[in-house]
């Protein structure tokens, strides 16, 4: 519990630093004054530039982290994350397709559709008539669906005019540049609804974690519970993708990082910690991406990629030593 508080404090501190540091540095006093009076440089930064950016980062990171933790718990495998299994790639494909076709639909809707289609395809392709699908097959098939989605995305981008293609490319890396309060409202509004939905399913996830046989024995409708949880997880990831692009590896890292850090035992505590950790990783990643090279704002996805890929390699070697892979 104490370390849970420490994680929250770290998140608050990182949000403050992210609001203060940038092309123009600003003190806490100015921020406070801007917040209270609505005037001065603090108000400008909070209201139009860094405020929406950081709020979007927190929301997108939280939904991605929560989504990752749901899948990792559901499949009882630390590699089962929406970014590994192709769901975020599916959401990204849908968004680029919508841009290419000039559809004026709300992005979260489009991304959710793409993510859901990818998830259904993964389930369909890895389904076996004779036996339950092992999680590793699911992960491999998911990787393949992700590859297919990325290939189609690249294909569609050749249809876009150069400027739009450049923008799409930047978005595909995962970027928080030029977010406005509309993005914040989308990710927080939908995030809270989906978070409540998750809360309603915590009990069945707790039972599922004991194993499908035991869960069925305890009177749980295993298939329905699984689909409900997977659907919620996909929608969470898609909302994150819709506002910030497919930021890589946040969903993969958040769960293991937070449960190791906080030592939370209950599933509810672990999920909450994963959401907080996802937000922390995204805010810090964006801060580092903005600060890395003076005068140039790198997309946040570059930073999470640089941190996440070594983590994935480390994870693989550890699973290998434990004989799980």
């Amino acid at each position, binding site marked *: 519990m104490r370390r849970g508080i420490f994680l929250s404090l770290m998140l608050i501190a990182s949000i403050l630093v992210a609001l203060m540091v940038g092309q123009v540095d600003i003190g806490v006093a100015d921020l406070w004054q801007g917040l209270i009076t609505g005037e001065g440089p603090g108000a400008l930064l909070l209201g139009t530039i860094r405020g929406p950016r950081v709020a979007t980062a927190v929301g997108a990171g939280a939904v991605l982290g929560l989504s990752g933790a749901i899948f990792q718990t559901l499949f009882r495998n630390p*590699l089962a994350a929406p970014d*590994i299994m192709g769901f975020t790639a599916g959401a990204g494909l849908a968004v680029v397709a919508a841009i290419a076709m000039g559809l004026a639909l709300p992005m979260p809707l489009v991304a959710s559709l793409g993510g859901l289609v990818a998830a259904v395809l993964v389930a369909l*392709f*890895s389904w076996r008539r004779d*036996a339950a699908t*092992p999680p*590793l*097959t699911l*992960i*491999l*098939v998911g*990787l*393949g*669906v992700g*590859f*297919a989605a*990325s*290939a*189609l995305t*690249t*294909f569609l981008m*050749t*249809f876009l005019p150069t400027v739009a293609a450049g923008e799409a490319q930047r978005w595909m*890396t995962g970027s928080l540049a030029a977010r406005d309060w509309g993005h914040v409202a989308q990710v927080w509004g939908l995030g809270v609804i989906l978070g409540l939905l998750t809360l309603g399913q915590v009990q069945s996830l707790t039972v599922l974690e004991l194993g499908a046989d035991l869960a069925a024995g305890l009177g749980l409708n295993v298939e329905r519970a699984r689909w409900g949880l997977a659907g919620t997880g996909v929608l969470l990831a898609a909302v994150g993708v819709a506002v910030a692009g497919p930021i*890589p*590896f946040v969903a993969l890292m958040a769960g293991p990082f937070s449960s190791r850090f906080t030592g939370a035992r209950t599933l509810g505590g672990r999920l909450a910690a994963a959401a907080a950790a996802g937000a922390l990783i995204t805010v810090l990643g964006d801060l580092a991406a903005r600060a*890395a*090279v003076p005068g*140039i704002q*790198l*997309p946040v*996805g*570059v*930073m999470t*990629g*640089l941190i*996440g*890929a*070594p983590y*994935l*390699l480390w994870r*693989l*070697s550890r*699973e*290998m030593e434990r004989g799980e*892979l």
Partner: protein
Amino acid sequence: MKWAGLVSLLVLVMGLSLTVGVRDLTLADYVTAITAFDPYDPAHVTLMSIRLPRLLAALIAGGALGMAGSMMQALTRNPLADPGLLGVNAGAAFALILGTTLLGRADQSTIAMLAFPGAAAASAAVFALGGGLRGDAGPVRLTLAGAALNALLLSLVTAVALIRQDSLDILRFWVAGSLSQAAARPLFEMAIAAAIGGGMAWALALRLEALSLGSALARGLGTRPGLVQAATLVAVTLTTGAAVAVAGPIAFLGLMVPPVARRVAGHSLRAELLASAILGGGLLLLADTLGRLILAPAEVRAGIMVALLGAPVFIWIARSLRPGATT
């Protein structure tokens, strides 16, 4: 019989690739272009300086990638091994962007010469990281290690490209995985590199087959596993390096070709290598030709066409692995 079918398919694709396009040409044009070349005849110029280099580039790169895929799959006993998926292309891209930024030069031969060592370093790295040297590189491990290395290198590449606008432009043209600049690439040198790699593979094939029976048995047959693995990696590097230098990054070709080649070649790895070379060349050429046609006069890069075809094949192979075999 199967071999005759394979070769006639290749010839058919070659004929198609040479004749159709923005400007449709007949094979008779080729005869006159070779016997009586007229530098002012646009048809002749198209043939000799655009279509023919492009055909050669596709055959070199596709054949090299097919052989590299066969070697990797034999070495790792992993049907999902493919140079592109294992981070080799990302390694080449990284070396390319770092090198052109540091050297301040970006002509075609510099690009080719930089891509080569980058591909080599990445293939060695991912093989070691995925546990390949222990001879137990499971599909999930190797594929994910490749995906991780890809992500890491591409993050670095994106960072450099966004910081330096000039590198971004170089990268945009190269990362395409396109054959449209084939004439400017060092085709002759890379054909030799691919041929040396292929020759090494041919010489190593019997020992690799012995190795696939298990290292203990291979030792008993007089094979030194470490040496064979190292030599095979060199051959993989030569072939993929050549392909990357000629055609840019192309994934999935080395994944798709070997299973089909095995159908033609049976259980002999030497025959499989030959079939992979023919099939790989033909498939890349077909992808390039289709890419020129479907959006004409715009082009879809050959790398994209191959990936659109290859991703479903990846899913199909991943799905058909027995549960025990995924480890």
